[in-house]
């Protein structure tokens, strides 16, 4: 088969088809739900991989594009395609999906059919978001994906799962609804100017300026900022993460948060370059502030999952700086850092889940000395921790480095604030690591914990491999980004002027 839109569609919809299949399994075949889901996602990864390898980094614009009529009464079309940026996000999603499924085999015992069906449906929703080139289609995927996530948290979550799932749903949805209003406004505005009803993303470059443009930009920005989550719209995240089952956390941190930044890059900024030019700094400043804030709050946690959740606020904050600074290296870094954060935080949640499965607690105080009991696990966790704090040689460094260096040229102040996160991340992550893994084994319940099982190795190994791969040879990923990043910057109105370095008075 040609590497084209068909493969793209297969990659997107195979999980959904599998979701239906899994949901309809007879009750006595319930134990097959997990393996089936895993098989489907592994199978769906094949076309995704083919797309990745078949992607031509040199070509501008969208590849594997398809544009079919859909709702002609509205002018909405079924338009999908990938450019370098969405390609990476797409791959990340396709990659994390099977891992999330595999991680649930032992953790999830109840309503397995529904569980895996939700995970699979979620996968289609997320892949669709990254592939959609039509606003309405984008919005449909964007929101539809909330439903399975809501179930994942609400049914298989922890003690406060109901509060967390409802908060997650309403909070993220509330933001998106204003975006909906803005989409409608744009849609009719575009029609009144051109006579054409369309939702094509490409039709809305520089769609509005002035006060209107700013208002619309803010409507979009709010929706995306909540998803990121940008300070101060982040409080749904810790609750959702803490209560979500492991797979939910992996997907939530690994992919869902990226959709916010992706929204900025794909929609908010190119649609309203003028407003983004003005509001870019304040929003990025919130991001940079979030780096410090997220790190401090992470430091204050005694629940491992909550700590990781707050660290996400910090990580995504720095990504926002990179995405909005409109400097090619920083933008590339931001996109890569999204992948990195997906891998490292996904892996962190995975590891926390493994601990939780063994001890049913996430409080650091309940652990200590685990490195002695589970040496292999400790090593894995260490690598993941190091990746998360951006140790050079691992993936996290490449992204942070590019963002910091790129944004420093334009916003030195924000870059320096973000740099503070480099210090703090070591403080809270290593602090956590120490409390969990080092010291004597004081709690008798921890004495006999088994080390990693084969299934768990299968979950972490791909993640570790990528963590190292990106750190050592990031160009494999970066080179697919260049064209798309330049397109983005061009649509965003070009690079921002660097700050002046000239000697004063000379």
């Amino acid at each position, binding site marked *: 088969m040609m590497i084209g839109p068909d493969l793209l569609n297969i990659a997107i919809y195979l999980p959904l088809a599998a979701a239906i299949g899994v949901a309809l399994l007879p009750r006595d075949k319930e134990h097959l739900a997990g393996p089936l889901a895993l098989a489907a996602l592994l199978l769906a990864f094949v076309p995704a991989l083919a797309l990745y390898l078949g992607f031509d980094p040199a070509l501008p614009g969208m590849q594997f594009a398809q544009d079919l009529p859909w*709702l*002609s*009464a*509205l002018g909405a079309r079924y338009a999908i395609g990938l450019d370098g940026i969405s390609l990476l996000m797409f791959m990340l999603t396709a990659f994390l999906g099977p891992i999330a499924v595999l991680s649930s085999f032992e953790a999830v015992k109840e*309503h397995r059919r*529904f569980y895996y069906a939700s995970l699979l449906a979620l996968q289609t929703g997320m892949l669709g978001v990254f592939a959609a080139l039509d606003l*309405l289609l984008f*919005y*449909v*995927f*964007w*929101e*539809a994906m*909330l*439903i399975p996530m*809501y*179930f994942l948290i*609400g*049914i298989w979550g922890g003690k406060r*799962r*109901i509060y967390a*799932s*409802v908060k997650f*749903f*309403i909070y993220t*949805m*509330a933001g998106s*609804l*204003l975006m*909906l*209003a803005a989409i*409608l*406004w744009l*849609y*009719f505005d575009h029609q009144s100017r051109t006579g054409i009803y369309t939702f094509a993303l490409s039709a809305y470059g520089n769609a509005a300026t002035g006060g209107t443009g700013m208002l619309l930009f803010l409507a979009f920005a709010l929706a995306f900022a909540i998803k990121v989550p940008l300070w101060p719209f982040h409080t749904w995240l810790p609750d959702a993460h803490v209560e979500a089952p492991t797979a939910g956390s992996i997907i939530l941190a690994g992919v869902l948060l990226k959709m916010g930044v992706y929204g900025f890059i794909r929609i908010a900024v190119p649609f309203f370059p003028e407003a983004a030019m003005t509001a870019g700094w304040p929003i990025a400043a919130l991001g940079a502030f979030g780096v410090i804030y997220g790190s401090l709050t992470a430091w204050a946690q005694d629940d491992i999952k909550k700590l990781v959740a707050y660290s996400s606020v910090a990580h995504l904050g720095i990504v926002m700086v990179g995405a909005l600074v409109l400097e090619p290296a920083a933008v590339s870094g931001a996109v890569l850092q999204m992948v990195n954060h997906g891998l490292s935080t996904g892996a962190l949640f995975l590891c926390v889940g493994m601990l939780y499965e063994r001890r049913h607690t996430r409080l650091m105080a309940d652990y200590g000395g685990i490195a002695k009991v589970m040496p292999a696990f400790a090593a894995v966790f260490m690598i993941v921790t190091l990746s998360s704090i951006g140790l050079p040689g691992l993936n996290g460094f490449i992204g942070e480095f590019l963002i910091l260096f790129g944004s420093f040229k334009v916003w030195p102040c924000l870059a320096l604030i973000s740099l503070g996160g480099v210090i703090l991340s070591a403080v809270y992550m290593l602090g956590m690591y120490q409390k969990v893994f080092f010291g004597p084994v004081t709690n008798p319940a921890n004495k006999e914990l088994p080390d990693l099982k084969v299934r768990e190795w299968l979950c972490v190994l791909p993640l570790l491999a990528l963590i190292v791969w990106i750190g050592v040879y990031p160009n494999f990923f970066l080179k697919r980004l260049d064209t798309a990043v330049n397109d983005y910057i061009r649509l965003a109105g070009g690079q921002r002027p660097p700050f002046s370095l000239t000697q004063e008075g000379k």
Partner: protein
Amino acid sequence: MEKNLLDLTAPLLLVAVPAIIALLVRPAWAARAAGIGLLAAFLNVSFGGPANIMPFGQSLVYDPLTKLLWLLILGAAFAVVDLTPRADCAASLPANEYYFLLPISAVGLMAMLATGDLIGVFIALEVVSLPLYALAAARRTAAGAEAGYKYFLLGSFGAALTVLGIAFFYGSVGSALIQSAAAISGLKVNQAAASAGFLLIMSGFAFKAALVPFHMWVPDVYEGAPSPVSAFMASAVKAGAVLILFRLFVAADLPLYYKVFWWVAALTMAAGNIAALPQTGVKRMLAYSSVAHAGYLLTGFMGGKAAFPAVYFYLAVYAAATIGAFSLVAILEKDEKGVTLDGLRGLAAADPAKAALMTVFVLSLAGIPPLAGFFGKFWLFAQAVRGGSPGLVVIAVLASAVSLYYYLSIITAMYAGKADVPAAPRSATPLTLWLIGAFVLLGGLAADFFLLPAANALPFLP
């Protein structure tokens, strides 16, 4: 002429005659008679040839528009009639009367939507309402009687106001045709009286459509009435009322009305959704939700005449989801008190099919993609933006966000909660519910199927 008249009356007769039969036959057959009649009428309208006939001038019009509206009413009525025997309360309903009154009410709705004459509309409205008063009390329980009487009192109150409005409108305009409302803005004298009179007329339908501040009866009546009747009131009757209201509104097309309706829409959405928040009874919650949905619909009015496809489509998906939800309540309830959120606990484990369907309906009502409710809402709000009321859309989306809370509380109860008492044995889920579920699930993705015919019917709007 003769054939034309038959074309026109056939659907009405196909409903009315079996209804009368249902009154006469053994109770066990009544449901079947009524259902067959409604289905036959539905098929007749669907597959009967293209029509554009007005045998009585404006008094009765059968055109593509009428056909669309009738399909909506007939579909809703059929679904309710078909699902009623599955309801927990079915046994306590007097079958003959029930299956007579409900189709007759539907006939009234059909007539109401087919006439271009205000008097005709009013009389048809009474044909709709009088059976409903009785239906609300059909179980002859205290709550039913209270619901019936409240509905009756306030309905009559509204009817009187409508007549007064018609009188003033006629007095100032000199005609009782709906389309003559277009003349209001051109009147040299008595324009104020005409527009006030017309507003009185509209208030009568606003009452039926449950717009704030005419909505207060809704929660009480929906709660007290048998659940299938509530389903009918919330779907077919509301659809009829909203459609007439839309017709009146766009016929007058007065800027002043736009302003007034702007506020009514905003208040309705806000009040309906906010009042639903603390509810624990599912029926009452759905009642408030139906109030809120009337507000959403009114938002679409801001787009004027061209908003018809959006309003129509929304009504269709709203009616489907509402019938679905109320029917599930009707099936699941165990006594007259109805289903509470606690009562839904553990449903997902006990009866996953019903829980899944309820989820689909509720999420559609909440307007979450990819369910039809989202597309309906999307296109409805689009009309308001097109009509220059983006502010109302902002209120609407905020209200939608608020509504999520109580919709989710239903789903949460079904899925996240554990049942306190062992669940009742699982019952089969009726095919009709599955069909409605499929429609709600997929109807939005194929919205063209509804929007395009509705757009084609636009020229027939007076």
